[in-house]
C-alpha cells in the first residue's frame, strides 16, 4: 500500500500536522464541556471550597512542574530530530516519557491518599468532578506517553529522522495535554 500519492498537497501543510490539529480541535470541546459543567455547577451551589481544602496542593504543584518541563523536553526532542541527531532525540523523548510517568505516579499517590481518607468519587459533587476531570486527563497523559514511547523506540533504532513530522505531531498532542492541566490545576487545587 502506497501512502504517497501523485496528487500534490494543496495546502503546503503536511497531512499529519493538519490531521493532528483537527483531532485537537475535536478534543478541546471534550474538556471544554467538563470545565464548563464544573464552573456552572460550582457557581450554582455552595460547599465546594471546603472540599477543595482536602486535595494535596503541593503534589499538584509538583505535577504541574513535571508536565511543564516535559513540554519543554519534547520541543527539544523535535529540535534534535530536525538536527538529525538520533541520540539527543532519543534522550529527550525518553526524558519526556519519564516525566509523564512521574506525573502518573504522583497522581496515583494522590488518589490513594484521598481514597484512604474517605474521599471517593461518590463523596459529593466536587469529588465527582475531581475524579472525572483528573481521571480523563490521566487517560490522555497515558495515551501521550504511549505515543512518545513508540517514538522513543523508533529513535533508538535510528529510523526516526525521515519521520520528523511524527515528533512534531506528538509534541502538539503533548502540549495539549499540558495545557488542559494548566486549566485543571487552578480549578481543582487553588480555588
Amino acid at each position, binding site marked *: *500500500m*502506497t*501512502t*504517497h*500519492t*501523485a*496528487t*500534490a*498537497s*494543496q*495546502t503546503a*501543510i503536511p*497531512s499529519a500536522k*493538519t*490531521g493532528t490539529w*483537527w*483531532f485537537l*480541535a*475535536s*478534543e*478541546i*470541546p*471534550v*474538556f*471544554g*464541556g*467538563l470545565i*464548563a*459543567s464544573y464552573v*456552572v*455547577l460550582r457557581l*450554582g*451551589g455552595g*460547599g465546594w471550597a471546603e472540599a477543595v481544602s482536602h486535595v494535596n496542593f503541593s503534589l499538584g504543584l509538583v505535577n504541574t512542574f513535571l508536565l511543564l518541563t516535559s513540554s519543554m523536553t519534547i520541543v527539544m526532542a523535535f529540535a534534535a530530530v530536525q538536527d538529525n541527531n538520533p541520540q539527543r532525540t532519543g534522550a529527550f523523548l525518553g526524558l519526556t516519557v519519564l516525566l509523564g510517568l512521574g506525573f502518573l505516579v504522583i497522581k496515583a499517590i494522590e488518589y490513594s491518599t484521598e481514597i484512604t481518607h474517605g474521599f*471517593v*468519587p*461518590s463523596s*459529593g*459533587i*466536587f*469529588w*465527582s*468532578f475531581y*475524579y*472525572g476531570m483528573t481521571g*480523563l486527563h490521566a487517560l490522555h497523559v497515558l495515551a501521550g506517553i504511549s505515543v512518545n514511547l513508540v517514538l522513543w523506540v523508533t529513535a533508538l533504532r535510528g529510523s526516526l529522522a525521515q519521520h520528523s513530522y511524527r515528533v512534531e505531531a506528538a509534541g502538539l498532542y503533548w502540549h495539549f495535554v499540558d495545557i488542559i492541566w494548566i486549566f485543571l490545576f487552578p480549578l481543582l487545587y487553588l480555588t
Partner: protein
Amino acid sequence: MTDAAVDPERTHHHKLGFWRTYVFSTDHKTIARQYLTLGLLWAIVGGLLTYSMRWQLAYPETEVPGWGFIAPDVYNALVTMHGTIMVFFVAMPILLAAFGNFLIPLMIGAQDMAFPRLNMLSFWVFATASVVLLSSFFVPGGAAAAGWTGYPPLSAKAEYTGVGWGMNLWLLALALEFASFLMGGVNFLTTTMNMRAPGMTFFRLPLIIWMELTAAVIFMLSVGPLIAGAVMLLMDRILGTTFYLPEGGGEPLLWQHLFWFFGHPEVYVLLLPGLGIVLEVITVFGRKPVFGYRTIIYSTIVAGFLSFIVWAHHQFVSGMDPRLAMPFSITTIIISVPFAIVIFAIIATLWRASITFATPMLFAVGALGVFIFGGLTGIFNGSAPVDIYVHDTYFVVAHFHYTLFSAVFFGGFAGIYFWFPKMFGRMMNEALGKIHFWFTFILFNSVFIPMHLVGLRGMMRRIANPMQYEFLKPLQPLNQFITLAAIVLLLSQIAFVINVFWSLAGRKAAERNPWQANTLEWSAESPPPHGNFATTPVVYRGPYEYSSPEAADDWLAQNQPLVTAKAARQ
C-alpha cells in the same frame, strides 16, 4: 497546468488477498461499501423495532404477531433503541461515512483518503460499537430504556429503569461510535484540504463535498461535551458519582445541555449530506447548473455556525430559566433562513429544467417536499409558546421524522440509486425503483401526517398504552391506521432489497458515466479500481456546467478540456 501523469508503480496496486480486499481493506470505496452495508442492516433492525412498537400502540396488550407480548418496560427499550439505532447506526454511517468515504476522494480526484489505515480503523471501531449495541439486547435487564436522549436521573441509576448493563453498553457503544466518526472527520477534512487534484479549487468542489465537510466540522466541534457528558453518566452509574443526581449536589439539567449541545447540531450533521445528495441529483437530472452555487456554500456555513446556538429549544419545558427561552426561540427561527435559501436554490434549479424522473430524481424531489413540510412544523416547535403545548407529543415525533426521514431515507435512497452504478458497477432496475419510491412516498405521508393530528390532540411520546387515557381513546382508529400504513411502508422496502440483489447478480454492467454527469467520479471506471484514476485528473471548471452553450453536449465534465486551447486555459 502540468500534465500530471501518475507514476504507474503507484497506481498499479499489487493484488491483495481476500481479507485485505474485502474485510480489512484500506480502500476508501470498500470502506464506504462496508459502512453502507452495516448501516442498511441496522436499518432493518431499527425498522423491525417500529413494527412491534406500532403494533403495541394500535392493539395494546395483545400479542404482536411474530414477536410476542410486549411489557411496558420492554416497550421503553424498543423506543430507546429505535431512536439510537436510526440516528447513530443508520443515518450516520450511511449519510456521513458511506457517502463521505466513497465520494470525497473520487470527487476531488484523489487516489484515496489522506490516512487510509485510520479510515480502516474508524470502520472497525464502528463495527465494534455495533457489536456492543447489539449485545445490549441480550444482557440481563435488557437494552437501554431511558429514551434515545438518555435523560438522567432516569438513566443515571440502574434501579430507575431496571436496566443495568444494557445502559452501560449503550453508553459504551455511543462512545466508540463517536471515536470512530472523529477519526473519520479528521480524515475527511485533511483529505479535502491536501489531496485535491490540480485545478480543483475549493470553489470548484461539488456541493455534496461542502456539505460533508461542514457536517464533519459540526460533528467534531459539538460532540466533545457529550463525550464528557457520557463519561460522567457512566461514572454516575458505575462509580457512584453524583454529576446528575440532585441528592449529591448534581444537576439533571446539565445532561440535557451537554446532550443537546451535540444533539441539535447532529440534526444538521445528518441533514446537510442529505441536501448535498439532493443537489447533485437534481442538477444532473435537470440538465441545468445549480442555482446560486456560492450562496448555497455560504448559507451552509452560516447554518453550521447557528447550529451551535439553538440547542436549548429542546428544553423549553425542562425547568430551564424561562428568560433563556426567547433567545433560543429567536436563533431557532433564524436558522431556518439559511436553510430556506438552500431550498429556494434547489427550487430555482428545478425551474425550467429539462427534468427526467429517473428513480434517483424521484427520491430527490421527494426528499425536498418532505423536508419542506418538516421544516414548516419546525417553526411551530421552535417558538416557545407553541412548543410548550406540543412538547413531548406525537406532533414532535411527526416533525422530526419529516426532517430526518427526508434526509436519511429519501436523500439516502436518492444517493444509493444515483451512485449504485459507480459503487457496484451494475445498473439498478428502474421499474422496481419507481415502485419503491411511490410506495415509500405515499405510505410515509400516510404514517406521519395523521401523527401530527394525534399529537395535536395531546397524545404523548413514549407511552406504551394510549388506551389507559380516556381522552386518547377516540384517537385509536387513527393510531390503527398509522400502524397499518407503517407496516406496509416497511414491507414496501422489500422492493429495494430485491432490486439491490437483482442488480448485483444481474449482467447489466454500468458504463463509466450512465447519467452523463460532470463530476470527477464519473470519469473513473465503474466501479473504480484501487487507486481510482488511471491518470490524475486535471480540473478545468466547476461541477455544474450543464447545457453550456460553449459545449457540444449538454454536459461538460470537470476534467474535459474545451476544444479551443484558449478556453481550456481559463
